[in-house]
C-alpha cells in the first residue's frame, strides 16, 4: 500500500529547545494511525508542522507524493489535508451550517462562488451539501444554531464535519475524544469508523488508550520530541521504552 504522508527526519526548535528531533514516520493510505505520547512530547507540534502553522527547520514532509514542506498553510487544504483542533476552534458567532460551509471554502474558490448570496438563497448547493454532511454524522438537529450555545460533544463532532466537507485524503484529528463522556466517545468512534471506511486516512492524536485501541491499527509514540516506538496498539503496552516514558524507569529510579 502506498503512503499518504511521509515525514523524513523532521526537526523543529523553538529558541534553543529542540521540540521535534529527527522524527520520521509514514502513514499508509486508508489506515487509521494514532500519534501518542506523554504531555509535551511534541504531538501537537507535529500537527502544526503538518498543517503549516510552523515551518520545519530540517527534513521534509510529503503528502500523497508531493513535497509540502514549503507550501503555505493556506494552500495545504487544496492538497488534501484538513484538521480539527485540540481546543475547539469553531467560529463561535457562526451557525453550525456556516461553520461547515467554511470547510467547503477551497472547493468554492471562484469570484462567482465568493459573491453568491449563500445566506439569502437558502436552498443552494453548498447549504444542501453541508446539511447532508451534518445529517450523515447525526447532527441534523442544529443547522441554524450559533455554535457557542451547543454542547461540547456536539461542537467536537461539528469540528470533524467541518474538516470532512473539504474532502481530505488525510484527516488530522487533535485529541478528538478529549472531554467527551463515554457515550459521546462511542458516537465519535462510530463516526470516525464510517469516515475511515469511506476511504479517508486518519491520523489521530489521543490520550484515551481505549479509544486508540478500538479505532487504530497503527501507533506512533513520541517522547521529548523523538519517536520511541512504532507498531500495533497491542505491542505498545509491552514496549519497555514506552512504559518508561509513561510510568518512569523502574531501575533508574529505584533507590
Amino acid at each position, binding site marked *: 500500500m502506498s503512503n499518504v504522508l511521509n515525514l523524513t527526519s523532521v526537526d523543529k526548535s523553538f529558541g534553543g529547545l529542540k521540540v521535534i528531533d529527527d522524527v520520521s514516520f509514514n502513514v499508509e493510505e486508508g489506515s487509521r494511525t494514532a500519534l501518542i505520547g506523554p504531555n509535551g512530547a511534541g504531538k501537537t507540534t507535529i500537527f502544526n508542522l503538518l*498543517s*503549516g*502553522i510552523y515551518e520545519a527547520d530540517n527534513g521534509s514532509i510529503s503528502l500523497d507524493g508531493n513535497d509540502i514542506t514549503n507550501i503555505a*498553510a*493556506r*494552500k*495545504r*487544504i*487544496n492538497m488534501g489535508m*484538513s*484538521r480539527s*483542533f485540540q481546543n475547539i*476552534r469553531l*467560529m*463561535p*458567532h*457562526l*451557525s453550525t451550517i*456556516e461553520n461547515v*460551509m*467554511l*470547510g467547503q*471554502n*477551497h472547493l*468554492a*474558490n471562484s469570484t462567482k*462562488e*465568493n*459573491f*453568491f*448570496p*449563500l*445566506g*439569502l438563497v437558502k436552498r443552494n448547493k*453548498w447549504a*444542501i451539501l453541508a*446539511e*447532508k454532511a451534518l*445529517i450523515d454524522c447525526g447532527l*441534523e*438537529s442544529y*443547522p*441554524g*444554531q*450559533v455554535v457557542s*450555545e451547543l454542547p461540547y460533544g456536539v461542537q467536537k463532532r461539528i469540528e470533524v464535519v*467541518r474538516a470532512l466537507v*473539504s474532502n481530505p485524503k488525510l484527516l488530522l484529528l487533535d485529541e478528538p475524544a478529549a472531554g467527551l463522556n463515554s457515550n459521546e466517545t462511542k458516537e465519535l468512534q462510530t463516526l470516525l469508523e464510517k469516515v475511515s471506511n469511506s476511504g479517508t486516512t486518519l491520523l489521530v492524536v489521543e490520550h484515551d488508550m481505549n479509544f486508540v485501541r478500538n479505532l487504530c491499527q497503527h501507533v506512533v509514540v513520541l517522547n521529548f520530541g523523538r519517536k520511541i516506538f512504532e507498531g500495533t496498539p497491542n505491542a505498545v503496552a509491552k514496549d519497555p521504552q514506552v512504559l518508561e516514558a509513561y510510568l518512569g524507569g523502574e531501575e533508574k529510579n529505584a533507590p
Partner: protein
Amino acid sequence: MTGIIIILCLNIIIAYSVFLPAAAGQLNLGAAGFMIIGAYMDAYLSSADEGLGLPILLTIPVAALFTGLIGFLMSFPILRTRGVYMILATFAFAEIVAGIVLNMEVVGGASGFPVTTHMELDVLLPVTILVILFGFYLISTRFGLSMRSIHDDENVSLLFGVNTHLVKVGAFTIGAFLGGLAGALYGHQFDYIEVQNWGILFSIYVLLYVLIGGTQTPWGPLVGAMFFTFIPEILRSIGDATGIELLTELRFAAFGVIIVGMMVLRPEGIMTRTFLELLFREQPSKSGPRMVNKNV
C-alpha cells in the same frame, strides 16, 4: 422631520462603512477621514463657482471610488496593526486627512467649501436603501462568511483556505468606499462642508453606532444608527412635553447613561445572532421534521 431623516440616512451609510470592516474584526476609528475625502473630492468636482462644475451623477461615484482607492492603499499599513492599535492607526489616518485638507487653499482650507448643487431626499433615500441591501447581500455571500470567520479566528480561516489578507483588504476598501459615498452625499444636503464637522468625536460616534448595534449581523449598523439618531430626539421631545427641563438640557448626559447601560446589558450589541433567532425562529417542532423531510 425631513431634517432628521436626512441625518439618519447619512448616519446609516457611514455606519455600514464602519460595520463591514468591523464584521471582519477591524476596529475603525477613521470614519471622519473617509468622509472628509469623499466630501471634498465631490465638492471640488461638482461646485460651479470654485470647482469644476461636473454633474453630480458623475462626481458622487467618482468621489466614492477615489476614497475607496485611498482606503485600499491605506489598508496595507493599517492592517498590519490589530485591536486597539488599529483604532490608533485609523484615528491617526483621519487626523492626517483633516490636517492636509485644512491646509489646502484650493478647497478653502479652514473656512470650508461651498457645494452648489443641492439635493433632496429623492437621491439620498434610495442610495441609503441600496447601501443597506448591499450590506445584507455582502454578509450573506461566501466573501461575507470569510469576513466573519476572520473576525472569529483568523488562523483557522487561513487553514481552511481563506485568503485572509485579500478578504481583510477587501472589507477595509469597501468600508472606505461607503465612507466616501456618505461624505459626497453630505455636501449636497447641507450645501457647505468644513473639516471641523468631522473630528474625533464623529468617528467615535460612528464606531459606537456599530458596536452598540452589533457587529454580528447586518441589522447592527441599521439599528445602531437609528438608536443614536432617534434617542436624543426622543429624550428632547419627552423633556419638552413633560416640561422637565433637565431632560431637555441634559439629554446627552441621559444618553450617555443609556449607552453605558447598553454596554453592560448587551456587550455584543443590540442585534446579536441569538436575539435574531429569538425574533425569527420557527418553532422547533416545526423546523426539525421539515429539515429531515427535505433531505430524505
